[in-house]
């Protein structure tokens, strides 16, 4: 297993779209270092030939009938949106000017 010192908290937080203050980065670096050192104890277990389990009770090909149902009410959805206009959710501009 890899070394817990390989964790760069600020870089990983940026992958998770999360800004950290310098103080948070320093604190999390230390706390998560301790947690990673602990979880690395798993490297001592022999799991050769063991299949991974993603789900405790796997259900395969579980499809319900494809019937049109009611959607959530538009007003309720727009009410929750931090910003909306013209019955749509508004976000900062994501395309360049032509």
């Amino acid at each position, binding site marked *: 297993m890899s070394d817990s010192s390989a964790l760069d908290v600020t870089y990983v937080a940026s992958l998770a*779209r999360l800004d950290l203050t310098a103080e948070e980065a320093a604190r999390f670096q230390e706390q998560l270092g301790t947690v990673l050192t602990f*979880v690395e104890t798993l490297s001592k277990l022999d799991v050769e030939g063991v299949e991974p389990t993603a789900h405790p009770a796997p259900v395969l090909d579980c499809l319900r009938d494809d019937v049109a149902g009611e959607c959530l009410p538009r007003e309720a959805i727009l009410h929750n949106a931090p910003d909306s206009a013209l019955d749509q959710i508004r976000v900062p501009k994501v395309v360049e000017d032509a």
Partner: protein
Amino acid sequence: MSLATENISSLRTRLVAGEIRAREIVDALGAAIEEKDGEIGGYLAADLERARQDADTADLEKPLGGIPIALKDNINLAGAQCTCGSRFLEEGYLSPYDATVTTRLKQAGAILFGRTNLDEFAMGSSTENSALQVTRNPHDLTRIPGGSSGGSAAVVAADTAIASLGSDTGGSIRQPASHCGVVGLKPSYGRVSRYGLVAFASSLDQIGPLTKTVEDAATLLEVIAGPDPRDSTCLDEPVAPCHPSLHDGVAGLKLGIPREYFGEGLDPAVRERVEAAIKALEGEGAELVEISLPSTDAAVATYYIIAPAEASSNLSRFDGVRYGHRAENPGDILDMYRQSRAGGFGPEVKRRIILGTYVLSSGYYDAYYTRAQKVRTLIQREFQSAFASVDAILAPVSPAPARKIGAAENDPLQDYLADIYTISANLAGICGLSVPCGTVPGDDGSALPVGLQVLGPHLAEATILRVARAWEITRERA
């Protein structure tokens, strides 16, 4: 005695007999909340006006007709808040729909009005990670109620609720039930629909009841369990009723005692209470079988890879676009995501997102995540082989009684390690419950509750409820 101190079955009997009216139950709860919840802090919201209206129209023919049930504030109830104990959802989110469990409670006639506190997004085992308020243990106000369903356990223990629902990802129903001295049931994975439960770790989360009696837990389970076309992981299996065998006792049952659950780290006073309960069940005719679950030690490490990995993925939906907190004046869309998440999430949620993102990242995925999934297979197999020779397993819930508020600050690992006896059930997908088995003395004369954990095979809820009821009967007799 206030009606608030009663349980579902006693209230139902009196309602049906016409001795009391549903509105009187709501009024009694209102008075109890007024008197006690200020210092306990179990509720984030309680809409008593709505409860009174629902009480006046309650259909007493239905199985929960006229019974108020509190919901953990991560279970959606149309038109109500669902904060998840987070600043992110504190404002700007009202549930647009009912969770499936909410729908089923309504169909069964329950009155839904109270929203209970929790660790933010159910991440924690003390309820201290709630960004919104502190919840205190009704048995000792200087101590945690446990968590993450700490509010749901505290309100039942304080008689400010009749019963509640919580969610359990690594012990979040059973551990607070143990610390607060109430019954808490985590159903088998796939037994109860997760539709409308705000997802933390999707392969581990289950919704379940916290109640004053084992019988009430059975009643609520029967209402909320069963197939749901809106949750593909909810099993398409009929729900066997738990009531017919509830009072059958334990004579002839084989109960496994896993030696790894009674080793180093278990508080001697807790051990004594749990062992006394086990001995009492032996006295009722159960056969005790010593068993071994060798991977128990690895369960905490496995969980703290898998749960954060799933959480980091699930919580990507909180981006400031569709609901909840959005940062003011972001530079561009990426900036909006980063700042909204930075401002909306508390420290434990940020730590778990970072940890989960790391163990899933390229180059580390196999070393951490895949390996943890393989250990999960080992844990699951060990339970399968144990249940080939025993009907249920008896164990402690938590290695120690409720700790002091603030005692684990800056050391998240300390609380993680205390999850050791509850986490394996979630990894294996089996069912488990906590039933009160006495108290141990705290400082300044308080009596701190201890829970007996009963674990059962997948979908064997009727068996563990029967074992817990047998213990309850011996306790009532003593």
